[in-house]
């Protein structure tokens, strides 16, 4: 019998385990940390930021007590600066580039400083941006995740009217449904969305699914431009025997359920959990299972530990939470009967070229629950009618996020070259918003 049940830990333990992973800096801590920034020329941290935030400038503004100005510097480039401060893998982005690493192997805590600067704005709702004179243009944005919201906000700022469509009842996409609970406590995702929408000019249409309720063809007819930020909502298949057994779950669905659960302790969790995959999602579901009280949690990844999509920080987070990582093994079979009870793995021998050879050596891990965290793909029937150029199952875009279909832009996880990061999605949305504005203005001039 599988051992899966809720309330493995006390209410207090659960509360502690799902509190803020990185508590915010106090005022004094922020000033001291801000003082560590060297205000570099052509700063490497800014170059490393996918949204080009002028990091030394926003830190200088913290230092001088100009926190509102600091927030403006951040949010002008990245309207989700608050969420990115929480979820960005800063250790491979801005903080990896920090010159303090060379000096003393300890970068400036840019992420925490960014949170220090942006939290007060969301707390008091101060509007830092205003809308340009209305253009009369209407743009459809499909997908209310980071890419869609960033695009909608930029378009609203530039004076256009936006109709935002999302298939869920709550906006936010993976910010709302896909991020580990301890990274975004206090309903932060919704508070940030409310702030973004407060600029005005963005009409929200929730519970509307592309391919069912609306089509790209119709959107192109009814609107002056279309942005697609639909994400990857369908989970990949392992393609092994036993995949359909009860107890085999999609990590993203469990993470979403956990985020939406009012009482996290009520969520059933297995005693022994096996996670298949090597990205952030694998770590998120593994650590959260552990924090819900799972006894034994194993992550199994088919390539070497260095090839894992999860950052070093995330891998360490898994280890310090008592999760065991097994690199170089692929699942052969999920064993039953009737319910997942174990997974049979074969050890692999990955080489530098990226291909993996089987070794013939096998091992078995007992499991009450098996999570698949091997990536997502576009839902069938969304963009596969051949009207938009696709490659490897993703939308092909140019440097302006423009698709092959005139008047249609795309960004976020659904496009080729996306890297599953909130910050990258925000940049796509911002770039597309600017490009759409340029397109609409040019068309205006031509017609006028």
């Amino acid at each position, binding site marked *: 019998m599988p051992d899966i049940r809720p309330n493995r830990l006390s209410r207090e333990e659960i509360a502690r385990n799902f509190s803020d992973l990185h508590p915010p800096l106090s005022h*004094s801590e922020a*000033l*001291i940390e*801000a*003082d560590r920034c*060297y*205000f*570099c*020329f*052509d*700063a*490497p941290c800014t170059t490393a930021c996918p949204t080009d935030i002028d990091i030394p400038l926003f830190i200088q503004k913290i*230092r001088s007590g100009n926190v509102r100005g600091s927030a403006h510097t951040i949010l002008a480039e990245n309207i989700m600066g608050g969420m990115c401060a929480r979820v960005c893998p800063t250790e491979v982005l801005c903080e990896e580039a920090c*010159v*303090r690493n*060379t*000096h003393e192997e300890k970068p400036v805590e840019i992420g925490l400083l960014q949170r220090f600067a942006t939290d007060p704005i969301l707390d008091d709702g101060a509007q830092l941006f205003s809308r340009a004179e209305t253009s009369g243009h209407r743009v459809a944005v499909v997908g209310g995740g980071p890419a869609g919201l960033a695009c909608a906000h930029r378009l609203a700022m530039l004076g256009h009217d936006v109709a935002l469509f999302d298939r869920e009842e709550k906006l936010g996409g993976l910010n709302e449904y896909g991020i580990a609970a301890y990274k975004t406590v206090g309903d932060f995702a919704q508070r940030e969305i409310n702030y973004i929408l407060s600029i005005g000019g963005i009409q929200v249409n929730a519970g509307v699914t592309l391919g069912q309720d609306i089509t790209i063809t119709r959107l192109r007819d009814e609107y002056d431009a279309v942005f697609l930020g639909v994400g990857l909502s369908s989970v990949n298949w392992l393609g092994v025997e036993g995949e359909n057994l009860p107890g085999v779950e999609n990590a993203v669905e469990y993470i979403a359920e956990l985020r939406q659960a009012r009482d996290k302790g009520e969520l059933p969790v297995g005693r022994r959990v096996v996670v298949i995959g090597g990205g952030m999602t694998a770590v998120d579901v593994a650590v959260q299972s552990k924090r819900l009280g799972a006894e034994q949690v194993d992550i199994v990844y088919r390539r070497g530990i260095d090839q894992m999509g999860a950052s070093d920080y995330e891998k360490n987070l898994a280890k310090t939470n008592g999760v065991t990582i097994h690199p170089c093994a692929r699942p052969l079979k999920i064993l039953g009967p009737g319910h997942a009870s174990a997974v049979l793995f074969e050890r692999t021998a990955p080489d530098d070229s990226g291909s993996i050879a089987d070794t013939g050596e096998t091992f078995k891990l007992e499991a009450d629950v098996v999570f698949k965290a091997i990536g997502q793909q576009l839902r069938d029937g969304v963009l596969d009618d051949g009207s938009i150029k696709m490659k490897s199952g993703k939308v092909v875009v140019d440097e302006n996020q423009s698709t092959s279909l005139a008047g249609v832009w795309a960004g976020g996880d659904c496009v080729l070259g996306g890297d599953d990061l909130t910050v990258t999605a925000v940049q796509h949305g911002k770039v597309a918003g600017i490009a759409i504005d340029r397109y609409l203005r040019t068309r205006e001039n031509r017609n006028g």
Partner: protein
Amino acid sequence: MADLASEFLGIRSPNPFWLASAPPTDKAYNVNRAFEAGWGGAVWKTLGEDPPIVNVSGPRYSAIHSNDRRVIGFNNIELITDRPLKTNLDEIRQIKRDWPDRALVVSVMFPMNAEVWKKYVPMIEDTGADGIELNFGCPHGMSERGMGSAVGQVPEYIRMATEWAKAAAKVPVIVKLTPNVANILPPAKAAKDGGADAVSLINTINSIMRVDYDTLTMYPATDGMGTHGGYCGEAVKPIALNMVAEIARTAETKGLPISGIGGITDWRDAVDFLALGASNVQVCTAAMVYGFKIIDDLADGLSNFLDDKGMKSVAELVGRAVPSVTDWQYLNLNYVEKAVIDQDLCIQCGRCHVVCEDTSHQAITHTVDGKRRFEVMDEECVGCNLCVCVCPVDGCITMRRLRDGFDPRTGQPISDEKANWTTHPNNPMRKSS
């Protein structure tokens, strides 16, 4: 181990660190604690005539802070002692009795009236104090009453009051100077002419710290109004060092013993003052910011420094750097330095580049062969040292002297001969060489 024992005007102390006349030396309680902590001496907080003055019962101090709240500059509007003269004299007598090996000097401030000086100086001497320091420095409050810096800014007054003090005193008389003057030499000369045994400097500098950003009134304020105070702490040290060195190197004042004061926080600051001509040093702000325990680092650091230099006593250090201070016109214009960036130490912050590019001589690259790299272009570098100042890595950028060949900037050959402004062809007042 170097001997830190100090003798200043015949006044002995186990080390050259005295507490300056200020709040830390206001009472026997404080001075006892200071001597227990190891301070070599103390200059008692300034005494005046009875009845004692009163102080405000509001903010007397304010500070300029670094971001982590280290005090960089400090300001006060406290006046001289606000306790009865007898209370102070009794405590001074007791302290000197209890601590015979420590230097105990009494600071005084009296109006410009010979009779007053004649009356009080003997009373102070009677305590057994080792010396008297004349406070001609405080720039706030007392100066409005014709004392403190109001005296120190008028050389004739300095000379007169010094003469009165000297006429009444058998112990050494030290004249404490105000930096709130255009030139420190006339006041120092006046003190010498009046018979002073030594000068001490600097006292505090006229200052307003800031405004209150909410009320847009002066900060700090007493019931909504503020007044300028005296500025001190680390920030004032360079001003003090210049004045000390001027007195030490100028013919008319050379040889006048100097007690150095102004922002001494650690032993290196003391080395600065001693090497530039002070025979001992006085400290206030550092004690007010960190407590008396910092004497441990001051004394221990100085002792280790002397050992490292092979010096047996503080006296060997005194005045060592004075011969290296001169007027601009005597600087060797044939001397050429270029900045050098150690690429192994460089952390690629680019600060040197941007400040040179924006504010100096466009002499540092930001890209070499398509890579982020900061290198000095000798053909543009004037050797100004700005990059050394802003580089966050100690020792990463250094200055290198060109000894032969040509200066790539000017195309002129490097010459061993010295040549200064006094004989330079561009100088319309040049002397024939």
